[in-house]
């Protein structure tokens, strides 16, 4: 029996979406101040207009949906999925006003890419954009990495059990603290402490690389936001290659690995439980799959003699594999190099790494280490059951913060989400192939989008047909929210259309 979709339901969804929009509008004040500080007057006006528009839309939502009712799981999933779409559109306004986008759809693609920490972009003439817009690009990715709703929960939304469900809808299903607001605050505390340290270290590296102090700081801030959020945006078209600095490679490598780990793991280590770093199933899964994909890439490229210098295998090949596996997408090679030089073996290694991705409840995308670990352990469990005597009780444990006994439902859930990811990976690959791109390249780009990685072999471009862009936006959005919130939204729309959920008082 499907519950009816009442006006109260609609009001709850609109009201809480409004709160998230207000949060986005308030974050937009930061690039406005940056524009003023750097005397970028036209950019500052664009941001002023965008802030006023975003806050106005947010207040319209609040007025229309004003309610004191608490969201339940169903509402929370809808709030999460709709908020991300509305945030994408409104955040695209300053992009579009900048004149660097070929269309508003491209602006939406870039903002969705930012919020989902993907890092692929359609922006034209990136090397000439304002400091304000660059700040906005990286701020979007930083906010999206921790979660827009997590941010709204910290400041604007009353902490309730329903609020926790909104976080689940956003893919952050970890209770770091007993209270939901404290959990949100703890996520931000971890991120902000890393932000201060990371920005400082990268600013010093930038200054020592020959960049002037103020811009060294801005570059340090941007690159930290990008690496920590496993985003992959960079302020210049050459991406991380712009800096020509080994220090930048090493620091961003470390930051992106840290960013790809579960916030619960960070929290455990910060609380003094250092052993968790070695015992955690996600860390073990990450180390195993990173080693396998690195060996494939290094062996494949060594065999093809693409790189002959030993240092290149670390600075280029290993860097790319880590960037793919953490779903960061920072790159120190050109897109075309994947196709022209890395070839099928190298690209396959990167596709595998991107598809697996980082940890759950982190800033990373992909299948997630915990699901890989659970499915692998589930497989071993099944083999054991066959090999052991029938009377034997086979029990398998996994360790994630605490020891848990592996049961069938855990394996089923993990496998189901992985199947959804595979479908989403294939969807983009089929569409790109239909537009005439070779299959391996299409799969590369598609996996990059749906796993929110951001590495490109050159397909993503502002000249692409609208359908490819729309499918790309869908892949990034569905992959980031881990499907459930998206399914609830589509389910609600279908129910409304076919009349099974009628809006009734």
């Amino acid at each position, binding site marked *: 029996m499907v519950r009816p979709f009442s006006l109260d339901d609609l009001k709850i969804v609109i009201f809480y979406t409004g709160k998230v929009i207000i949060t986005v509008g308030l974050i937009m004040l930061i690039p406005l101040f940056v524009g003023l500080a750097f005397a*970028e*007057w*036209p*950019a500052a*006006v*664009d941001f*002023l*207009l965008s802030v*006023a*528009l975003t*806050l*106005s839309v947010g*207040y*319209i939502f*609040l*007025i229309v949906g*004003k309610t004191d009712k608490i969201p339940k799981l169903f509402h929370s999933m809808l709030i999460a999925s709709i908020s991300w779409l509305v945030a994408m559109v409104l955040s695209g306004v300053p992009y579009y*006003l900048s004149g660097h986008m070929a269309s508003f759809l491209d602006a939406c693609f870039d903002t969705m890419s930012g919020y989902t920490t993907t890092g692929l972009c359609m922006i*034209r*003439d990136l*090397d*000439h*954009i*304002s*400091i304000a817009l660059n700040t906005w690009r990286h701020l979007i990715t930083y906010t999206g990495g921790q979660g827009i709703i997590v941010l709204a929960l910290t400041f604007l939304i009353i902490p309730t059990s329903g609020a926790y469900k909104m976080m689940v809808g956003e893919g952050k299903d970890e209770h770091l603290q007993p209270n939901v607001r404290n959990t949100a605050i703890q996520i931000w505390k971890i991120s902000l402490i890393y932000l201060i340290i990371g920005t400082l270290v990268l600013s010093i590296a930038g200054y020592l*690389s*020959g*960049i*002037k102090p103020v*811009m060294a700081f801005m570059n340090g801030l941007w690159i930290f936001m990008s690496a920590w959020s496993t985003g992959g945006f960079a302020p*210049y*078209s*050459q991406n991380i*290659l*712009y*800096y*020509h600095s*080994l220090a930048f*490679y090493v620091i961003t490598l470390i930051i992106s690995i840290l960013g790809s780990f579960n916030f619960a793991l960070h929290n455990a280590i910060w609380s003094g439980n250092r052993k968790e770093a070695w015992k955690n199933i996600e860390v073990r899964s990450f180390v195993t799959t990173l080693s396998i994909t690195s060996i494939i890439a290094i062996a494949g490229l060594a065999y093809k003699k693409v*790189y*002959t*210098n030993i*240092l*290149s295998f670390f*600075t*280029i090949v290993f860097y790319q594999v880590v960037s793919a596996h953490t779903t960061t997408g920072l790159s*120190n*090679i*050109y897109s*075309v*190099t994947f196709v*022209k*030089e890395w070839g099928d073996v190298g690209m396959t290694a990167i596709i595998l790494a991107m598809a697996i991705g980082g940890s759950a409840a982190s800033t990373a995308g992909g299948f997630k280490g915990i699901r890989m670990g659970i499915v692998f352990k589930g497989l071993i469990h099944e083999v054991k059951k066959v090999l052991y005597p029938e009377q034997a009780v086979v029990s398998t444990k996994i360790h994630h913060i605490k020891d848990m006994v592996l049961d069938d439902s855990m394996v089923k859930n993990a496998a189901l989400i992985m199947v959804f990811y595979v479908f989403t990976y294939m969807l983009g690959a089929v569409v790109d192939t239909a537009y005439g791109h070779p299959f391996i390249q299409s799969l590369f780009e598609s996996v990059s989008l749906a796993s929110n990685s951001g590495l490109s072999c050159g397909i993503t471009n502002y000249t692409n047909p609208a359908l490819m862009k729309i499918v790309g936006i869908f892949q990034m959005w569905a992959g980031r929210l881990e499907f459930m919130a998206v399914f609830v939204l589509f389910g609600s729309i279908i129910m409304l259309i076919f009349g099974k959920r009628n809006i009734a008082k």
Partner: protein
Amino acid sequence: MKRIYSILLLLILFISAFFFLNIKPAFGKIVSLQELIENSKTYDGKTVTCRGEVIGDIMVRKDGVWINIEDNGVAMGVFVPNEIYDSGINIKYTGGYKAQGDIVQVEGVFNRTCGEHNGEMDIHALKISVVQEGHPYDLKISKNRVIMAVLMIFVLSILMYIYHRPSLKSKNNNKDNHNNHLTLN
């Protein structure tokens, strides 16, 4: 005589090939950065001539200077050793939001994976010169956008007032509470 005719014929064919097949001599030819990255194996270790706009920062290092040049949407790092950089190149503008950078012509060795610089793809300059000076952009504020922004702020103020004003219901409640308070007194 036959040999002379043969040589002449070959020469005519060779020159014709230049015109009809549009083959240009390798030396001095300006190669686009796109062509370099797409055919990196062909150009690896060879001396090439490129042109591009200087963008971002000029990064001074111990043994030289890094500049990044952009040509038709593709950017690449050029390492200019100190002796070449100090010999008189004067880059006035670097490309960014506020300026179009100087266009430089670089003659240098192209490296597909540079052994000196972390395996990056780069060019080590042998000669560099500014061929076209950049200029600051005329960044004008759009009047229409300012008007729109002011209007939006006005709309926002009204919406904020509507949302945050005490509702009639809570006003009445407050009034009742106040009256009760007075009665009790």
